[in-house]
Structure formats: C-alpha cells, structure tokens
C-alpha cells in the first residue's frame, strides 16, 4: 500500500511536532498532518522558556513549529508542508499537480507570510495613527487576495486549492482566525463581509471543516490570550481601551499561555511571537 519497502520504513518512522498552542504556524502543520491522516506526537513548547530540544533542533531560528521525522528536524511551516507532500505523495496532496498552479500557491504563501501577516500583527501591536496606517495596509493586502478570488488566479473556487483545501488554504486559513479575535480586542474592523465577500465566505467555509475545528483553539482561549498580550503591550490596566468590552483583561496572560506576570523581556518575546504568528 505504501509502495517500495524503503519508502514504507521511512514513512513509518515516528512523527513529533514541537509547537505552541497559540501559534498559527504550528496549527498549519497540525492541520496538514490531520488532512493527510498522519499520526504524530505533539510537544507543547513554552515560548518564554524554550526547551533544550527546540534549541538543538532549530538552532538558526529557535522557533516553533519543528517537525521531527525519524529523528530529523524540519523547521519553517511552509517548508514542512511541502515536505509532507514530498514524503507522502500518495496521501491527499496539499500542492496542486500543475507546475504553474504550484508556483501561484507558493507565491501567495509568501505574500501571506511577508505582507498580510506582518500587517495584521502591526494592527494588534499599535494604537492611534500607527494603527490606522496598519489597518489600511491590511485592507490593501486583503483587496489583492479578494481580487484573485473574484477575477484572478482563484476565480470561481470554493477554496484556494479548488474543491478541497490545499497548501494556500492551510497557510492563509491558519492565521486568519486571528482577524476576528483582533477585531474584538482592538475594536478595529479588519474583514468587512461587504468589502471582502469572497474572502469572508472562504474563511467561513474553511473554519467549518472538521479538521480545522479540531486544530484551531476555542475562540474564548484565543480572545483571552490576545487580550492578555495586548494588555501587556499597552502596559496599562484595562488598556484594551479601544475595544475592551468591559471584560477585565487579566494582568497576566491566560493560564495556558507562556507565563503568568511575565517580566518585560518575556512580554516582548510573547508579543513578537504573536505578531509573527499570523
């Protein structure tokens, strides 16, 4: 069933994922593994107190996620996802078959990580005029994606991958759930269903999938975590100011998140992690 014997034993080697519960990059890998029906061991990393194992397995970036397969470490989520396709070509491919479509998927994955993600992160970590500029940037970026759905590369598709989710859905989707969370926490409007109807519909369909629901943490936990981080970033009690719907932001982060009452350095680390996690 698995093909050649050597492939079978390589493929059968155990999979272990080092990740962080609130990291959308980690969710990408968890979702991909679930879509491919691959079993794996999960190890939660405390990002404010990284394990020796993580530092040894990803010495260059020291970040999650890291996938360990048969003892060999693979960092960087988009690289991991492509590895899963290369190592298990017979299991639900994430990339399309056509070379040009593959190039498009990769291009838009880079866009998600280099442009859209940082812009969304900037909205979350800023206030006032700086935040307004960041919001405009997010809208410009979303408009580009919307245009591809409406009349460009992904016209007429339910998902970026076609009828089923693919690489770009996983990459964009795991992270887009932060949009609603950040809207709630900062009081800023990011994804207007009227301004971005196709993106909005896609996200709704993505989030309704079983494997996605299994992977993305409950919105309450995400909200609590985001409120805590924003609170620390703004350095004031109740400074969820712009959006705090009266909810008491805890002065420390949520119980499951990195540390309680973290010192400034760790707070910066947490903010940086969440800022790049989109």
């Amino acid at each position, binding site marked *: 069933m698995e093909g050649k014997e050597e492939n079978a034993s390589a493929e059968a080697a155990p999979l272990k994922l080092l990740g962080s519960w609130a990291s959308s990059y980690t969710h990408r890998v968890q979702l991909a593994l679930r879509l491919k029906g691959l079993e794996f061991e999960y190890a939660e990393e405390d990002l404010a107190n990284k394990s020796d194992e993580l530092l040894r397995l990803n010495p*260059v970036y020291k970040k999650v996620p890291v996938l360990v*397969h048969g003892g*060999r470490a*693979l*960092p*960087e989520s988009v*690289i*991991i996802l*492509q*590895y899963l396709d*290369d*190592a298990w070509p017979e299991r639900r491919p994430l990339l399309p078959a056509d*070379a*040009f479509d*593959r*190039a498009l998927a*990769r*291009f838009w994955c*880079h*866009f998600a990580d280099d442009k859209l993600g940082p812009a969304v992160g900037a909205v979350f970590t800023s206030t006032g005029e700086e935040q307004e500029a960041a919001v405009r940037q997010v809208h410009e970026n979303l408009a*580009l994606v919307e245009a591809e759905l409406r009349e460009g590369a992904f016209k007429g598709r339910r998902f970026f991958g076609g009828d089923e989710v693919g690489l770009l859905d996983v990459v964009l989707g795991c992270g887009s759930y932060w949009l609603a969370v950040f809207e709630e926490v900062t009081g800023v409007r990011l994804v207007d269903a009227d301004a971005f109807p196709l993106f909005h519909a896609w996200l709704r369909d993505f989030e309704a999938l079983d494997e996605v629901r299994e992977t993305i943490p409950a919105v309450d936990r995400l909200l609590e975590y985001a409120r805590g981080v924003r609170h620390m970033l703004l350095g004031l009690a109740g400074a969820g100011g712009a959006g705090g719907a009266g909810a008491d932001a805890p002065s420390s982060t949520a119980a499951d998140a990195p540390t309680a009452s973290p010192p400034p350095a760790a707070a910066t680390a947490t903010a940086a992690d969440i800022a790049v996690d989109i």
Partner: protein
Amino acid sequence: MAGEKSLVLLDFWVSPFGQRCRIALAEKGLEYEYSEQELLGTKSDLLLRSNPVHKKIPVLLHAGRPVNESLVILNYLDEAFPASPPLLPADPYARAQARFWAAYSDKVYEVGTRLWKLKGDAHGQAKKEMAEVLANLDGELGDKAFFSGDEFGFVDVALVPFAPWLPSYEKYGEFSVKEKWPRLDAWARRCGERESVAKSLHPPEKVDEFITLLKKHYGIE
C-alpha cells in the same frame, strides 16, 4: 522544445535575484529571452501587468504566463522542465533542507543592505547579524564542495549571486570573509568557475559602483 522558445525573463542587470534565475536557466540548458527592465525610472507596462502585487523583477514569463519571485521561479523550472538537470535533490528531507537554506540566503542581501544604508546603532546591529548569517552558512556548508554535497544545486544557485556583493559588505561592515570563513570564500571561487555563474554575475567593482549610485539615490551620506 516549443516550451523553451516562449521563456522570457524580466530582469535588472545587477539584481542577484534575477541572476539566480539566469544561472538556473543556464544550468538547465534552457533558452530564453532576457528583457532588461527599467527600475529606477518608470516601470514597463509588461512588468506592472506581470507582477502587479510587488512590481518587482525577476519575472519569468512562460508562454506569456508570469511566475514571480526568484525561489518560486527556481522551483517552477524544476517542475515545468523535468527532463532538464534538476536543481533540487530527489530526497524529501534533502529538498526541505535545500529550501530552508535557499530562503535563508536572502538574509545576506537583507542584512547587507542595512550595512550600507544605516548608521550608528542600527549599523552595529547589522554588523552583528551579518557575522551570524555568514557563520550559519559557513557551518552548513562545512567541508563540502557545494551545499548539497558534490553537486552544484539549489542552495548554491540561491546564494552565489550575493558573492560579488560581499566585498562591498566587507567594506561597510569591516570584516573579511576570507579570514573568518575561508570555506565560504573557497566555495564562492569554486562556483565562479562554472560557466553559468561566470556568465551571469558582474564583478564586485560594478556592484560597488551600483551601491554608490543607490546611496546617492536615497540621499545617504
């Protein structure tokens, strides 16, 4: 092969990202039309139409359809021309490592740019980071001839275009690659002996002139 005749590369003479593509096309024995683009002035309609998101080169047009971003183009060339010598290795893990280090090599340019552009603390920070980046690359290369072993491949293609920029970075960063990372220095010379590389890269003096031009353009120093 009919497919080859319809390859056009939108590029800019000194761009290391464009050079990645030129080297790749040469290594694969693929014919193409080179189209020099105006970047500091007005960008062509063709470029703006082909890469509306970033408006940047390189762009590879294949039968009129644009493929954007140098590393995406390199992957594409392997996949669209499977009969040509592959840039990526066959083994899945080796491929993942190649993709990782090719993407990492972008940092040489990113940090290098900060070296000639910035002053004060920011410049100091860039110096530190450049040392880290080069040390990491040197460590990954180790005692191998090329990054994936005996064969010139994906990572080498991705990194070697930055070699002519290193003398300038050395000047602005006050370091010597030959002194600190002799293996990397030897690797750059080794790659330079390949025809595809020798024909695609410009001498360091030309690159340094270009940096000086950019500095004037940005009103630096």
